[in-house]
């Protein structure tokens, strides 16, 4: 094999022989039943600020119709969940999920002194910071740092993308980003890459060069582990044709093959609907719902739904009143969707947002998003949320 194919790079070489550093072997030899007990968290990010009020529609409230004359969803079109709230008609795929008791909606989640910049608010949601605090690590990254039993390897947290979000970066540990396990496996098995890793003992110091080599070794062993564990599994489920559904299909493959990963991260973009919102958001919600429904049913078939919790967030909701272009502008509090086979409270978790008591046109939040994180950390990931969120947050009763 040509040693420099990595450097020509584009034509990938066929996968080379399996490369597993010695220290990885004990883990791979772990008993299978131990793997089966794994609880997974799937974080779904809706980028751009999803309009929560046209997602979960307060059709029982006249104010909604008064403020949104051009974009309100008519009561007869709403998929009704309660007397007050229902789903956008594009989310029909979730009706069955709701009826199965696999879904709960948390209304009005936000944080004090909300920031309406996409970038900053996403930063706050990903790091779990206060709005006047700047953290350089993400909340999942700090979970990895917390030295949980299974957090030693980068594949403990996988983002299905080409690059890693801040949410997944800790001080000393980081998750791994990959769109296609086979491609990463090929890259790390490239002869040039492997040659760099040979006799690397002299580099395993605490300094920056040591850190680079350590990252390479971990990438290489994670890539092998992920590829070799997941390639045996073939999903029989049918997923809709969308990029988002493909990400979830990859996650399902990982979960169903018994990968020892605790957190998965996927995202769907395009929710910044300032202009002609109804159709744009409708398309996205359809992709979201159909992808999610297929994913959850796939997990159910594989007996993994009980071990999986899905949480969906967006960096902010939108203003209650629509704008002049039949769109909505940046707002504050928003709803979050939770899915899973072991939800304590199903359907709608708390009261619908109060549309008559606004803060200069924006919703006031009922729950801090870090209470949702805190609940997941305490009750699902089994760590003390104060260690991750820098102070203790009261937990909620959805799991």
């Amino acid at each position: 094999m040509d040693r420099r194919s990595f450097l020509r790079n584009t034509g990938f070489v066929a996968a080379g022989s399996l490369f597993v550093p010695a220290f990885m072997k004990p883990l791979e030899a772990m008993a299978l039943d131990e793997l089966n007990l794994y609880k997974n968290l799937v974080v779904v990010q809706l980028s751009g600020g999803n309009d929560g009020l046209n997602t979960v529609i307060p059709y029982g409230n006249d104010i909604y119709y008064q403020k949104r004359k051009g974009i309100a969803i008519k009561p007869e079109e709403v998929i009704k969940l309660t007397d007050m709230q229902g789903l956008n008609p594009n989310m029909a795929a979730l009706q069955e999920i709701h009826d199965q008791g696999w879904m709960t909606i948390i209304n009005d989640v936000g944080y004090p002194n909300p920031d309406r910049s996409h970038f900053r608010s996403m930063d706050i949601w990903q790091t779990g910071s206060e709005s006047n605090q700047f953290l350089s690590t993400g909340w999942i990254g700090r979970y990895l740092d917390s030295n949980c039993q299974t957090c030693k390897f980068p594949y403990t947290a996988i983002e299905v993308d080409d690059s890693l979000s801040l949410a997944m970066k800790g001080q000393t540990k980081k998750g791994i980003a990959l769109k296609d396990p086979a491609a990463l496996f090929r890259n790390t098995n490239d002869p040039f890459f492997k040659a760099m890793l040979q006799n690397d003992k002299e580099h395993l110091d605490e300094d920056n060069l040591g850190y680079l080599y350590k990252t390479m070794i971990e990438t290489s062993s994670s890539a092998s582990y992920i590829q070799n564990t997941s390639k045996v599994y073939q999903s029989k489920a049918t997923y809709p044709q969308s990029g988002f559904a493909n990400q979830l299909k990859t996650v399902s493959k990982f979960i169903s093959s018994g990968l020892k990963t605790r957190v998965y991260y996927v995202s769907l973009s395009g929710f910044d609907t300032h202009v002609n919102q109804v159709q744009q958001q409708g398309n996205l919600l359809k992709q979201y719902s159909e992808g999610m429904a297929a994913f959850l049913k796939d997990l159910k078939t594989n007996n993994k739904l009980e071990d999986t919790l899905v949480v969906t967030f967006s960096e902010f909701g939108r203003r209650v009143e629509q704008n002049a272009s039949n769109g909505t502008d940046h707002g504050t509090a928003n709803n979050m969707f939770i899915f899973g086979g072991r939800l304590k409270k199903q359907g709608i978790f708390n009261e619908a947002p109060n549309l008559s008591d606004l803060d200069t046109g924006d919703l006031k939040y009922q729950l801090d998003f870090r209470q949702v994180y805190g609940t997941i950390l305490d009750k699902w990931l089994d760590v003390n949320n104060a260690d991750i969120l820098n102070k203790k947050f009261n937990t909620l009763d959805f799991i």
Partner: protein
Amino acid sequence: MSSKDNFYKVKHLYNRAGFGISYTDLHKLSRKNLSKVIDGLFKQPKEADDITLIDTVASKQQLLMQAGLYAKKDLTDEEKKQRQDIIKMQNEKSRDLNIAWVEKMINTPNPLREKMTLFWHGHFACRSNNPMFAQQLNNIQRTNCLGSFKTLLVEVSKSPAMLQYLNNQQNRKGKPNENFARELMELFTLGRGNYSEQDIKESARSFTGWMYDKDGSFIFRPNLHDTGTKTFFGKIGDFDGENIIDIILDKPETAEFISRKVYKFFVNDTPNEAHVKELALAFFNSKYDISELMKKMFTADWFYAPENVGTKIKSPAEFLVGLSREFYVTYNKPQVLIQLQSSLGQYLFNPPNVAGWPGGQSWIDSSSLMLRMRIPSLVLNDGEIDFSGKADPEDEAVIAQSKTATANANIKTKPKSFVDAKADWQKFLDTLPKGITPVELAEFLLQPKLTDKITKMISNNAGLRNTSVELASMPEYQLC
């Protein structure tokens, strides 16, 4: 001092103070006294070196038009389109501005100036969707990068980009907005723990009325300024913004905070507090002359100590600019530079927040390291790009509109995309001495000391060109 010794020192100096050095220049400068070489870095043409890509007159007109459109309640379809067109044009110009600066860094004859601008760009981190504002702030940072820190600080504080970003535009008498006042002390001067909440309140009152007008020029509005008495760090008076800045600069903690940040950027991620104190004292005593601070650092023995050589992780900007300078790369499709920046986690003009990029080991994760190791071959051998960076959150509105009505809109059926760049190999090879061995080439291209493994890997003597690509693809090349 042996000339070989000087060779490594000059190389180190140019890696940190600039973006690397060509072999020819290195060879020439190694024969000079090191202090002369340092002085040479500071001898730069005095004339303005602004980026002038964004036409100020046209931008101001556009800004006025935009303000008019925003003030109207009901827009006609044509006016709505006008408004969208302006936003679209601003996004395009913002990308052009980014490329213009990256190319300036690649081609500049004054590397220290651009390196300092990059430092201040991260220190006074700011985002603006108005490219004229962004260009102006960048030029302020460049013009004052080696001058008086006070002038720099005042100019930055008055720039529409910062006034907008940190909400001083909304900071009015009786309705103070503390955002700018807080970051001024927390991130720009004193650092956390060196001021009280009361100081922030009083400082915010003092900056009331610092705004920009409709066409984007700084304006002090006396009728919105709080003329009452303020108590700031124990001093009492009817302070305005400049008074506040003076009081902040009277505190040696400011000199120390800036010196520590400079040290972390130019010397080592982990500050040696004794060295920081040395720098801070010189900086304070020079009345905040940035050139004095930098000279003090570059002439210090410890700057060249082994623990500070070849041990810093290059930022994505340093990595991309350095690689492009090293091999005389021209980008036929410079947009790729934006894709590379965003995939590597440093999209210039778009810092994660006002605290800037955290730097150091936070640049590196599995995917960014794999990508860094592949980029030299992508750029130097015109490879195919099979990755995509994350969409910038500010581009979400564009994404929202570009997603068409079909349910399959989210599937990317992108055509194959190539870097489309060209390295001038002949020019690079001509700079190298005749008969240079692979090991000597490695000693030149890499900053860390060579190990047996590297020596062995390049010993097959695949030719200078192939060996160069190999070396640039090594983890060692990520360090400077």
